[in-house]
């Protein structure tokens, strides 16, 4: 709570600073409202400063205060900062955002800010102007929407979306305009100077469901995807309709009632199609352009994300220039290019694009809502006409529902999966109006429409009503009506496979039954797309990994590998490599991943694989073992993040070591093959050593000299150190790691020698020894085994010996596993040493087979900082 309070005061403080700074200036025009910058043009610039850098300079000023100089960008940045802070404050209060959607809260914050400015200036100086909104705030929101649009879902519901967007919006506009006009004629709103065409104009500007508001509210509600895409798609597409309707009626208004005839109306209808399809076409063309461009940006990876944004924005501006629908244009641009740029660009660039996209979209969404709130605090725009405002609200609400129900009724006759009644209710209720309507309303020409201010204030009220009231009630309504929610889980691999099977099956059935349906069309399109578009727009190398299935598989593999290694760490060794098939499998899995990550190393490893492949052909053991592995992993899901972290630290770090060299155009990552390889091997080795020593809990490297002792004493040593490990777990591990890592084998030859050796006599259960010892050599993990010939400094046999001492303790775990019957005897045997350690209660690991609690995991967080 305290923190929040502080945040709040900080925020208020910063706002006050702005206000004070602005009001201290004392002349309203000089405030240079940042968001009106383009309107005010030169006026603010011409206002001279009082802070002397006038002509009467008497000497060289050491410090000058040039407020005028930085005024506009400064205020602009402050506003962005304030918006961000508002969002932060809001998001810090989760129990509030659970009830009230963020957009509503942002508007309320806007009210407060507006009130402050009003209090300081007594005049509304900051408001959302159409120029700023349409040119600088809206495009990125729509681009983001297009870029992250689920294309398949969108196109398979395209028909419905179009019906709602086109017919629904026309219906809303016409019915609202006509009804208001009717009420006006009936005398419900007193004396207003509004004609039928003006009413229709008003209807058209307020008819459209607003994408920004809809995304903001529906994102938090998580309704099922069909419902979401219906509302969302409609809100995006109907913009084209609104803008066209608005323009047409605007033209009618300026033409004057007398000149409107059939020809003009037909022209209006034609212009609608031209604007909508033209806009989409422009977007499509730009989307292809982006895709083509990213095909050849291999050498300028740093700036390739920029292309996406610049070209996207250009698509918007081009459409605007040609008076086509700019929103449709930028949306289609994003939708077209998403697939290709994700495949073409470097993974880092793709992530960059995603992040920047979200930053921009989220940021401008925040600013839009805040300014919607701020705009309200302005005495000049508020004109109250009870009849007009209340009737508008009522009609909007009612006609939206009527429109949705009627259109759905028609659509359901043709839809394979009918939309249910509850879904329709939510669709109707989700008809939020937002900033687009407000932007259009402020664009009205006051000279022709006398009641412009009334329309603006009505629009604002409608926006507040829908965003705040409907937004707040949306969530309870969704819960109360038990609307089908979206599944939150990601698709598993098998589901993906089944999805693919589905698609092909449906196509096949359509083919056999001789129907030409969706699936048929989609199949044809996919074929075409595969054959031509991909070839043209995608890098050849990218085409391979593009398959969804493959991606999921790849991800799974990565996860498996991590778990696998983690598993080894957890047990204090990589003992599981004992199993022949496990080696192969691990290698295979690893190989697949690594070949992506570290192709150079894999080239090396693959030589070896040919030898292994004979084992690999045998499917059953590997799978059954994996299943066992998997079951264990299933119990450790929570550790995944840790393991990932650890893996990154230890395994992949070598690759990412930056040379400290300055370059603006490259992130210099080590690319020298030999070096990478060596680092990789060293880290692997190093890790092994660290685990080992961590396991033992003793043996800081300093105490160790080169040992080539024979096995028996070491076995004894092992017993001792095992005992020690109980006490040293917490204390020594950090130390161990730090030593291990800092030593991190710049001299690799000494590494394997860091053998934990403590003279002493521990008690080891002798039963295990004969059984386990022969297995010990197998513990050499494949990468080490391979590294041998390269390095040549260490004799494998030596290492094998060296490693021996710690095997029994680890093997204990596996002992029962190996006895297939799992008789109680085996457990008894296994339990003997385990019983000693159990008192520690290290970590509660209740795997079925292992009787001993494994050593606590190595301290991931610590060693991370040291690598």
């Amino acid at each position, binding site marked *: 709570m305290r923190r929040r309070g502080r945040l709040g005061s900080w925020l208020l403080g910063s706002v006050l600073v702005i206000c004070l700074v602005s009001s201290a200036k004392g002349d309203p025009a000089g405030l240079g409202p940042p968001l009106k910058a383009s309107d005010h043009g030169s006026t603010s610039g011409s206002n001279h400063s009082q802070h002397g850098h006038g002509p009467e300079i008497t000497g060289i000023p050491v410090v000058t205060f040039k407020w005028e100089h930085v005024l506009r960008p400064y205020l602009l940045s402050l506003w962005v900062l304030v918006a961000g802070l508002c969002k932060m404050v809001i998001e810090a209060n989760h129990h509030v955002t659970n009830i009230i959607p963020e957009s509503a809260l942002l508007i309320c914050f806007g009210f407060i800010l507006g009130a402050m400015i009003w209090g300081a200036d007594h005049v509304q100086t900051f408001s959302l102007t159409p120029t700023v909104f349409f040119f600088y705030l809206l495009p990125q929101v729509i681009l983001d929407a297009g870029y992250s649009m689920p294309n398949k879902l969108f196109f398979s519901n395209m028909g419905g979306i179009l019906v709602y967007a086109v017919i629904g919006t026309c219906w809303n506009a016409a019915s609202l305009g006509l009804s208001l006009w009717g009420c006006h004629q009936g005398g419900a709103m007193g004396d207003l100077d509004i004609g039928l065409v003006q009413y229709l104009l008003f209807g058209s500007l307020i008819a459209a469901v607003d994408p920004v508001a809809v995304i903001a509210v529906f994102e938090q509600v998580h309704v099922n995807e069909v419902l979401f895409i219906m509302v969302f798609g409609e809100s995006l597409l109907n913009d084209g309709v609104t803008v066209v309707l608005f323009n047409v009626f605007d033209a009618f208004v300026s033409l004057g009632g007398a000149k409107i005839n059939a020809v003009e109306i037909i022209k209006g209808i034609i212009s609608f199609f031209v604007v909508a399809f033209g806009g989409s076409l422009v977007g499509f063309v730009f989307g292809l352009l982006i895709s083509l461009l990213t095909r050849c940006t291999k050498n300028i990876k740093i700036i390739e994300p920029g292309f996406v944004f610049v070209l996207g924005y250009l698509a918007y501006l081009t459409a605007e220039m040609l008076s086509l629908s700019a929103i449709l244009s930028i949306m289609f641009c994003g939708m077209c290019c998403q697939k290709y740029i994700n495949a073409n660009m470097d993974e880092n660039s793709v992530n960059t694009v995603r992040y920047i996209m979200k930053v921009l979209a989220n940021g401008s969404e925040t600013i839009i809502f805040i300014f919607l709130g701020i705009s309200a605090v302005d005495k000049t725009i508020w004109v109250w006409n009870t009849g007009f405002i209340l009737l508008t609200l009522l009609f909007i609400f009612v006609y939206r529902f009527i429109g949705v129900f009627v259109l759905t009724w028609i659509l359901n006759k043709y*839809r394979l999966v009918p939309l249910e009644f509850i879904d329709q209710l939510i669709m109707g209720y989700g008809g939020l109006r937002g900033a687009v309507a407000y932007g259009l309303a402020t664009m009205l020409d006051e000279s022709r429409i006398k009641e412009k201010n009334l329309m603006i204030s009505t629009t604002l009220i409608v926006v507040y009503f829908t965003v705040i009231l409907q937004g707040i009630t949306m969530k309870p309504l969704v819960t109360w009506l038990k609307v089908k929610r979206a599944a939150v889980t990601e698709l*598993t691999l098998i589901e993906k*496979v089944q999805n693919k099977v*589905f698609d092909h099956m449906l196509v*096949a059935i359509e*083919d056999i039954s001789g129907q030409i349906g969706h699936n048929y069309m989609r199949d044809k399109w996919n074929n075409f797309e595969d054959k031509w578009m991909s070839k043209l727009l995608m890098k050849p190398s990218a085409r391979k990994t593009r398959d969804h*299935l*493959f991606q999921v*598989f790849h991800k799974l593999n990565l996860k498996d590998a991590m778990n696998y290694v983690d598993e080894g760490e957890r047990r204090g060794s990589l003992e599981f490599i004992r199993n022949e098939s496990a080696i192969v499998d691990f290698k295979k899995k690893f190989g697949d991943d690594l070949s992506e990550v570290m192709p150079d190393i894999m080239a090396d490893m693959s030589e070896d694989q040919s030898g292994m492949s004979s084992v690999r052909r045998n499917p059953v053991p590997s799978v059954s073992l994996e299943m066992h592995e*998997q079951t264990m992993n299933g119990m450790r899901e929570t550790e995944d993040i840790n393991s990932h972290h650890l893996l990154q630290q230890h395994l992949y770090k070598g690759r990412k070591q930056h040379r400290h060299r300055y370059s603006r155009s490259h992130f210099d990552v080590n690319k020298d093959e030999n070096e990478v390889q060596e680092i990789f091997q060293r880290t692997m080795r190093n890790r092994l050593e660290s685990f080992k020593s961590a396991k033992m809990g003793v043996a800081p490297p300093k105490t160790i000299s080169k040992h080539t002792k024979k096995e028996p004493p070491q076995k004894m040593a092992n017993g001792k150190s095992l005992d020690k490990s109980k006490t040293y777990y917490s204390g020594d591990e950090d130390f161990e790691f730090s030593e291990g890592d800092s030593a991190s084998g710049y001299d690799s030859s000494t590494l394997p020698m860091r053998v934990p050796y403590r003279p002493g006599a521990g008690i080891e259960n002798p039963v295990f020894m004969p059984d386990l010892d022969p297995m010990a050599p197998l513990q050499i993990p494949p990468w080490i085994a391979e590294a041998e010939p390269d390095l040549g400094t260490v004799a494998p046999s030596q290492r094998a010996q060296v490693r021996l001492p710690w095997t029994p303790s680890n093997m204990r775990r596996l002992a029962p596993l190996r006895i297939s019957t799992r008789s109680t005897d085996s457990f008894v045997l296994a339990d003997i040493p385990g019983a000693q350690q159990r008192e520690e209660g290290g970590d509660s690991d209740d795997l079925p087979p292992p009787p001993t609690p494994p050593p606590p995991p190595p301290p991931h967080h610590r060693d991370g900082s040291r690598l």
Partner: protein
Amino acid sequence: MGATQTRSEHKYQDLVEKTGFSLEQITNLHKRFQHLSGNEETISKESLESIPALANNPIKKQIIGAFFDKRNQHQDEAGSFEEIGFEQFLMVMSHFRPPSLKTTEEEKEAMRKEKLRFLFNMHDTDNDGTITLAEYRTVVEELLSKSGAIGQEAAKAIADAAMLEVASTNVPHMAPDEFYEGITFEHFEQILKGLEMESRMHIRFLDMDTTTMRCGKSKS
């Protein structure tokens, strides 16, 4: 001509009850059937395989196999037909019938089960009640065979991984020496719960005059 018309209509009435298709749909499908079979009473695998549109379908073999699978005929038989008549053809098609607004929840559930069973049967080629790894691999390999980029090795690995997933989700506490034989129907159902089979696994069967439907279809 008129006589055959009424006779077939009478016969269709039977099928309407059995399969749930409307009379018009059945007539339409019958036309298609005759077209495929070359006006024979029965249809053979070869004539289905020769449909040009199917040429690119990677799992063509499985799908055509499903048509000749006795398990998909709503009877407790196993094995496969050499040739199928119109009734069998229709029975298989009925798995893809979309639900209507009037379908109750229970009916939907039943449909779902049926659809799942169909899918399951498609994978379980030897009808032993489980999809074994080998069976699953065949399907996945075929499925990915057309995409070119993914080699057979990868396909195999994907099948393995998918199988593993099933194993781990369904038998989370498996003993180390246990062996997961394959996906049973229950597991299959469990896994695919999230896929909303009932709302996806169907296609549109034309039931009216083809020409009027076309425009409606292009819209929705």
